[in-house]
């Protein structure tokens, strides 16, 4: 058991004991959680035998325990969230600390220390200044959206400067969880791979405030790419996380009865600033424009246009590996989200679609969720990838799945 987990278990026990002694406890203690089962079955024909891990790559049951506690006046607070997982598809049992942090609130600042999730930026499933770790396996398997975000062990300081807020996050590096051969095809089993994780901490800054009715923010970060750059030969590979610096801004405000979102960022690929290394991403400019509004009393629609503009493109073309098709200089993606609710918002139909205009591929996620009561809901949905196999979504075309999630909260 790693030390963090041990501390989490002890904290849970303390909180439980604390809750039974509420009369003498001056603050608040809340315990909650859920039991959840989720499975996804492939719907594309890739020659899997039915019922095998190949045809049902995701099948897990999990229990989440959550504890919140705080002092009466609110100066000190604690949140802990641990998932205990039985992964029947991979025949593994595991526990994961999703969040575990302590807050200290003063009049002019808040400090949050421990494992925490940070979400920045205004994109809907498109990220520019949200440089924090993500779990793409959870996302592609249809797990609830919260599992797309991974916590990282960080110290976060929020400074409240009159009408502006300055957030500073210093984190230990956490890589993204990427699809691999265990649950995705046709990802070949990787040969011997040595992983070199960065030893130095990352830092991210955000300064935000209101400009009239608009939310404005500027961002900067010094860190690393969260997907590894692989070097070596077929016998032995080295996975390294190249350096990445970012700067950007976002704006969000009302327009014609809806909400307009704008975000941009510059990704400075520090280890390949000239764009000559074939294994490391070149620097990029990223743009996002989104608009969402209601169509009726229970209907919402959102559209987004997104672009990545590769820098030093000529150098990239000269130095890239000849084994793959070249990436385009301008990668564009459009998305649409449509949400409709029925039966007093107990039944929710949601459709999210990515269309990779530059790579000619797409990714569609339809889902239907029904809340049987306040404690039990079930969701059925699908992840459907299609188009060019060279594209980011098309490369997953053998992994179309239909999933079912059932959650009971307590």
């Amino acid at each position, binding site marked *: 058991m790693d030390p963090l987990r041990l501390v989490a278990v002890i904290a849970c026990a303390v909180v439980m004991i604390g809750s039974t002694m509420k009369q003498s406890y001056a603050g608040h203690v809340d315990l909650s959680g*859920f039991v959840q089962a989720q499975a996804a079955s492939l719907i594309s024909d890739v020659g899997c035998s039915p019922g095998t891990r190949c045809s049902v790559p995701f099948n897990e049951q999990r229990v989440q325990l959550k504890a919140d506690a705080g002092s009466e006046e609110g100066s000190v*607070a604690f949140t802990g969230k641990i998932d205990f997982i039985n992964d029947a598809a991979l025949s593994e049992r595991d526990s994961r600390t999703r969040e575990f942090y302590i807050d200290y609130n003063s009049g002019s600042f808040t400090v949050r220390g421990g494992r925490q999730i940070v979400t920045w930026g205004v994109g809907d499933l498109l990220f520019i200044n949200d440089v924090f770790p993500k779990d793409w396996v959870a996302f592609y398997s249809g797990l609830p959206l919260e599992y797309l975000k991974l916590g990282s062990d960080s110290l976060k300081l929020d400074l409240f400067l009159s009408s502006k807020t300055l957030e500073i996050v210093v984190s230990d590096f956490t890589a993204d969880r990427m699809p691999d051969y265990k649950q995705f095809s046709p990802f070949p089993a990787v040969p011997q791979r040595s992983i070199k994780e960065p030893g130095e901490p990352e830092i991210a800054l955000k300064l935000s405030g209101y400009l009239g*009715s608009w939310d404005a923010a500027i961002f900067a970060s010094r860190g690393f790419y969260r997907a590894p750059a692989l070097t070596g030969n077929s016998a032995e590979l080295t996975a390294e996380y190249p350096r990445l610096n970012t700067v950007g801004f976002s704006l969000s405000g009302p327009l014609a009865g809806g909400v307009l979102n704008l975000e941009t960022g510059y990704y400075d690929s520090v280890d390949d600033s000239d764009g000559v290394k074939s294994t490391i991403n070149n620097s990029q400019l990223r743009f996002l424009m989104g608009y969402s509004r209601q169509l009726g009393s229970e209907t919402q629609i959102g559209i987004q246009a997104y672009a990545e503009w590769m820098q030093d493109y000529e150098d990239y073309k000269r130095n890239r590996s000849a084994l793959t098709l070249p990436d385009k200089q301008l990668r564009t993606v459009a998305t649409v989200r449509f949400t409709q609710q029925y039966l007093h918002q107990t039944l929710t139909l949601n459709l999210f679609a990515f269309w990779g205009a530059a790579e000619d591929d797409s990714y569609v996620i339809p889902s239907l969720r029904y809340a049987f009561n306040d404690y039990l809901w079930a969701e059925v949905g699908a992840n459907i990838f299609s188009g060019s196999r060279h594209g980011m979504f098309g490369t997953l075309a053998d992994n179309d799945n239909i999933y079912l999630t059932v959650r009971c909260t307590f």
Partner: protein
Amino acid sequence: MHLSRLKTVRPLLFLLVLNCVPGEAIFAEPDAAKLVADSLQAFYHAGKDMRAQVTMRLINAQGKERKRVMTMLRMDTGERGGQRYYIHFQNPSDIRGTTFMVWKHLEREDDRWIFIPAIKLVRRIAADDKRSSFVGSDFTYEDVSGRVADDETHTLLRTEEIAGRVTYVIESEPKERADYKHRKSWIDQSHGLPLREEFFDARGEKVRVFVADQIELVEQHWTITGRTMKNLQTGHRTQARFDEIKYDIGLTEEMFTERYLRNPPRKWIR
């Protein structure tokens, strides 16, 4: 001394005489628009600010019940008709910690944000349709935070006694297309709060009924502490109970910013 007294009495006498002269200006019916505006003021703007613990029971036609428990903070801003709302959910546990923040404006659309605690996400949400359901209940956002008197034309129909209270019965028609064609409200003549409201569709069918189940005097403000909204078409109804009400607790506009959306003010939020 006598003289100075007489000087003040004379104009008073003159006014009394004037008042005895029958005339339209003096015996006119109360202005319906003014009655509605005063009623909205009493209903949604009592005190400079307010805190309440709100429990909503959402009950379907078969009697199956869901429950929403939340803390509501509200304050009036200097802007005419402008308000700030902060609604923090405690139950059910699936939405615990989810928070709505609304900057309500008279002249333009409201600004509305949501905080989703599971991913620490603050998102601005479109607030175009104030008549959409508030968290699946029979109350609309507008029912929760109040409508604007000028958005409707008002006609005083009659006075009527209901449950021993004398009320003005007013018919109001939205100037722009809405989910109802017109509504009738029964406004208590003494404290100005609506005791009952009925909403009608374009065919003249009654579709929704609001009833003030309980009205209490809280810190000198008459307050509707129990209310029900019933959808007559589906048989679904929502009963809302306001407890632990406190007025003038000293909220500031700073409380209604992203800082507190991400980190609830524990002084007022459970």
